[in-house]
């Protein structure tokens, strides 16, 4: 395009590119292709992406997110929900709730999307070794924590007892039901699921996810807990975990804020002194505990 400027084409064909964004600027996406797509619930889809160019993506880890760009619509932060041991493909689970997420959910295989990332902190997989691990997820909050479950299944001997408690609004809103059944079949994992409002076909537990916590088997003196879901769920789940004897500094939470850049430059995601995009999204509970007590922070 001749616009009177010195327009440079920054498409990155360089196989030395190590991040999923254009090497000329972390604010400019790299281009990925939708390999496949699957429906999770009535409003939630998973998409599998691979890099258009045969270039390496930097290692991504459980808990991190990418900024996904839908052409002409915008960009939103979406957690990586796939298996991080497969560094070839990136899986994202997206709930269709806004303009950009709608566009992303409507992508077809072969469509291209922009990807910047991976950004943010990770679940503390190393610090969990040798401990009982309690995983609490709510709603779409199972997606950012699913890579942890994959990781544990692949490195089962590194961890002690593992308990997963997942709450959803209704049975039809549960993510990954088949996979949950599969995790359940592992004798060395406790998997408990609950819904707020049941349908007649539902033969499982009814009640909020916090009510599952006292029924999980763990040794509170040697347990780490990971919590992901809306902030209000995190607040009550943490309260219940602590009242069940888990040490507050053994609890990690994944926070959500408005994010525009993913690299701490646009200011939107501030929570006290933290930039949730780069100091988070995964925080040790004790680092953010004080912020939970301040309204409209």
């Amino acid at each position, binding site marked *: 395009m001749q616009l009177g400027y010195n327009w440079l084409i920054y498409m990155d064909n360089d196989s030395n590119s190590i991040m999923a964004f*254009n090497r000329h600027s972390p*604010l400019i996406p790299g281009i990925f292709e939708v390999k496949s797509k699957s429906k999770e619930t009535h409003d939630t889809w998973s998409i599998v992406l691979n890099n258009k160019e045969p270039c390496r993506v930097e290692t991504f880890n459980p808990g991190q997110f990418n900024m996904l760009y839908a052409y002409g619509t915008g960009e939103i932060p979406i957690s990586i929900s796939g298996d991080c041991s497969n560094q070839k493909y990136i899986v994202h689970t997206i709930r269709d709730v806004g303009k950009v997420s709608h566009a992303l959910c409507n992508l077809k295989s072969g469509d291209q999307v922009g990807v910047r990332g991976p950004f943010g902190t990770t679940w503390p997989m190393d610090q969990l070794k040798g401990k009982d691990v309690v995983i609490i997820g709510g709603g779409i909050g199972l997606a950012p924590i699913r890579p942890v479950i994959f990781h544990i299944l692949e490195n089962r001997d590194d961890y002690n007892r593992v308990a997963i408690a997942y709450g959803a609004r209704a049975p039809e809103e549960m993510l990954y039901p088949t996979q949950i059944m599969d995790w359940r079949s592992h004798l060395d994992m406790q998997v408990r699921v609950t819904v707020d409002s049941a349908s007649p076909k539902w033969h499982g537990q009814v009640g909020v996810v916090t009510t599952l916590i006292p029924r999980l088997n763990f040794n509170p003196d040697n347990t780490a807990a990971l919590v992901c879901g809306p902030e209000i769920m995190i607040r009550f789940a943490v309260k219940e975990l602590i009242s069940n004897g888990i040490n507050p500094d053994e609890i990690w939470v994944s926070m959500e804020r408005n994010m525009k850049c993913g690299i701490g430059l646009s200011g939107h995601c501030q929570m006290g002194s933290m930039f949730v995009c780069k100091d988070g999204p995964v925080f040790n509970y004790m680092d953010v505990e004080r912020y939970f007590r301040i309204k409209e922070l």
Partner: protein
Amino acid sequence: MELNVMQPDQLDDLIQGISLADYQVIGPMESNGAIAYEPIESADDLPRGIIDHQRPGKYALQKIQSSRFFGYTVSPFSWKKYLYPPVQTLFKAERNGQGIQLETDSHDVKYAFIGVRACELSAIKIQDKIFLGGDYVDLHYKERRENALIVAVECFNTCETCFCDSVGSGPEIPNGADIVLTEILESGEHYFLVRSETEAGQEILNQISLKDTENNHYLIKDAQLERVRAKLKRKVQTTGLKSKLLKNPDHPRWDEVAERCLACSNCTMVCPTCFCADVFDINDLDGNTKRERRWDSCFTSDFTYIHGGNIRHSVKSRYRQWLTHKFASWQDQFDSLGCVGCGRCITWCPPGIDITEELKALSIPPNQYKKGEINHV
């Protein structure tokens, strides 16, 4: 480096010299009743004999009998608009079939800023930390910043709204300038004391025939600076301020200031350190699209929007975020204050909210604070 004497008519030689070195020269000029930092062609464009009056919610220029070039204090605009433009295209994109092709431009203009004040240079250094000092570098800022030439000018005057000394950003020019000027107009003599601080600055000065200084020039320069310092009446007590702000998110003063605050975002738009931005995807009818980054403000209602609603819906929470960020959390994030005491946010606040006054009130423990205790004038 060495201090020299430059005659007033050599100021234009300096500007032309900078221009010949391929810089676009940006300097102060009178525009629409205010001082603006705009491209200038010669010293004639400078606001000679014009001073500014700034008070909470008030700004006015006055033409006086003076041949002083830099008699005003600070413009409503800051140099930020060149280094970190209010609207910036991050990339353009085209679609071909299912594919996307991105293009981005590089910025090939070198800026020279004439008349950067101490507080403004401090602000640039604060933004350097944000955009260049972290894990991720903003390359759009970097290419502008690295090529910029800074000609700082010491203040001769102050406004009622200035408080640079109490936040440690002035009135002496901090390091980081390429050339530093002090304009002296006293005892019927008018000249500049000039020094370079970088090679780039020295190369420019080498083209002008400067005179050596005499001993009393240093005294005159120091005396002028001390007069400026003595005029700075407005203060912020920064000691202990951080913990006072962080510990009292429910201080009654927040409610009081929220009653006056219009959440208009003027303070953040004139602030030389505020860096928040939003991005917009703009499509044309040919199906092409571009992404623009635009300045944003933590005072806007949807600044904190996540699915389900905004996190900060009250004006109180937004004002608290802004002021607490500037004076407390900024220290955790960037190891400095986020305020340089330029006073722009006081001048350009329609109801005239004065942050120094708010900070004084917020420093009183909540249980000892009486409503309206520190009143605005």
